[in-house]
């Protein structure tokens, strides 16, 4: 067997270029780095850019931040693109996301929604749970 992910877990965090709210994601990134997770942070216009970057950077998890209501649009597009291109990377999302939208996001394949009030610690401890590390 092969070790898929040598060393550190790698996560791609992505923010829509048009949503400037980044206090939350900056805190999450800082805490992830402290927790030994490698971070790639990008902004994007088209959700497809997220998939391309995630594949190129060979990350284990994709994290989306959304604070002005674009969450359903971004996730729908991203999951659709990933399905078409057969890219299989778990996706998590955080930000200002109404509780009523959580089931809709989970239906579209999101692994976890970190809505308002979630802490960076919750993200840090959740990520390893969805990263598949194959053993020797």
């Amino acid at each position, binding site marked *: 067997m092969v070790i898929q992910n040598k060393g550190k877990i790698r996560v791609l965090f992505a*923010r*829509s*270029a*048009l*949503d*400037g*709210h*980044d*206090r939350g994601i*900056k*805190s999450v990134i*800082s805490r992830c780095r402290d927790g030994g997770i490698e971070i790639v*942070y990008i*902004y994007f*216009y*088209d959700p497809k850019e997220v998939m391309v970057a995630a594949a190129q950077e060979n990350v284990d998890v994709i994290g989306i931040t959304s604070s*002005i*209501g*674009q969450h359903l*649009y*971004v996730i729908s*597009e991203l999951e659709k693109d990933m399905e078409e291109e057969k890219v299989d990377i778990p996706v998590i999302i955080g930000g*200002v996301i*109404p*509780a*009523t*939208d959580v089931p809709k996001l989970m239906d579209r394949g999101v692994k976890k929604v970190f*809505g*308002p*009030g979630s*802490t*960076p*610690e919750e993200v840090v401890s959740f990520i390893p749970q969805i990263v598949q590390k194959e053993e020797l």
Partner: protein
Amino acid sequence: MGTFSQEAMDQAENLRREWEREEKEVYEKKLKFTLPEYHNESGILLKPVYDSEDIADVSPEMPGQYPYTRGIRALVHQYMPWMIQQIHGYGSGEDTRERSDVLTKEGMKGYGEQRVVLVDVDPSTSVGIAPDDPRVKGFCGLAGVMIHTEEDIDDLFHGLDLSKTRFAPIPRYTDLPILAIYVAYAEKQGYKPSQLNGQNMNMMDLFCTQIGGPIPETRLKLAVELIKYCTLNMPRWNHTNISGYPIGESGATPAQEIAITFSAAIDLIEGGIKTGLDPDDFVPRFSSQIHMGMSFFEEIAKLRAWRRMWAKLMKERFGCKNPRSLQYRMHVQTSGISLTAQQPLNNIARITIEALAAILGGVQSLHTASYDEAIALPSEEAAITAIRISQVLQHETGIPYVSDPLGGSYYVEWLTNKVEEEATKVLQDIENHGGFTECDKTGYIRQMLERESLKRCQQISNEERVIVGVNSYTQKEETKFAPFAIDTEKKRQTAMERIQQWRGNRDNEKVKEALDNVRDVMIKYDSLEKAGNLMPALIDAARVKCTVDEMTEAVLSVSGGRIIPM
């Protein structure tokens, strides 16, 4: 205030000693209570009590007198209570007009009963990208109104008397094209630019919202262009909003908010002077948008220190003589960052406390937030409740009867001095690092804010800082709350059809000429001394039906384009 008789001072000294003795005997010895060290948000160490000794160096002053610590008018709220000016806007011009009408009916009004169109714009408008550009897919009409053409402006304003209407859009950097379209629209309705009333932002705070934009030098040019054009042509227009709000939302402490906002204002004033204007001609048309957080007394002290520091800065540094240059007119917005998605009704208490601090601090104008802001776009019900908070404070409390009711308070006067001291230190530090525009480029200010924001987040995570309903007093059962949402794809479809029709129904030769001219003028605008020609070129472009997006692109294509710092 430092005029106490020797006898009174001796008596105060005795009482102070007695208090200290009791604190030691009862709390420390008997109850084994060690007084914690309390620091406020700006890092100022607080004493457990204040007395006359703490205000010995406070000079006598009355409201309406220089340096205006106690208010810029003799009567702060008795003659004219604070204006209820609510930022609103979502979806199309029609959607926002409907919300505008509701809020106006419920009590929103500006100076002299003016109609208020104080609107956030959506991301596509904010950055000037047309609705049919794929880059704004998924964003049309979110968090603000779409304004791309004169038709959108008409949706917002049809039937209103523009000379009695205040238009204050809040884009990130499309202020000039939007103003140009408004001027061209008003002209068709028979209004001269000099009759129009409203305001622009200043584009200096773009480092707060990381959605990119022109390089700092270009932003300064655009802001200075507004100063020059409006000073000469639009005397009723507040050309520049000295905005601390996004700085506060990005994590600044109250003292940092003053300092960073002032450092930006200094660059703008110096820019205005370079265009050949006298600060006394344009500083009176600065407006403001100040952030109001939960640190109650500190926020009150912030507003008092803010006015005093501003008056001194304008007088001593810029030699202003016009009293209106020295009097900082305050519009305050209660914070968004203090609101919680959990137990959202608790936010009504938070908004009320922040509004109260703003009022006790002597503001001219107030935006009270909607309690559902941490969850979604404000619903109509929440937006009306926000207005009611202001109205309850205005009519039921008796607070407006007395000017600067906290003036002379040992604690508040001491704290005002301390906040001023701390803000002066931060301002000095920014100036030592090259001033605002330089610190914007190097990321110095951004890093300052990120440190604060991270600190706050950690304090909440490790429960050092209690946020009710978030890390304490939490409820298992989540409040059932139906968020207000819009169908952005539908909004985008309609907007796409409209803008395509708009482009089809105009003389595109003239459009091309006008945009070429905008580019030419922008290329020639190579130093601040040459300000004053871009707005006329943009108004010409608006007259031949150019859109916000086309004008933005024309300006940016020859001045460094858009950058997105991460």
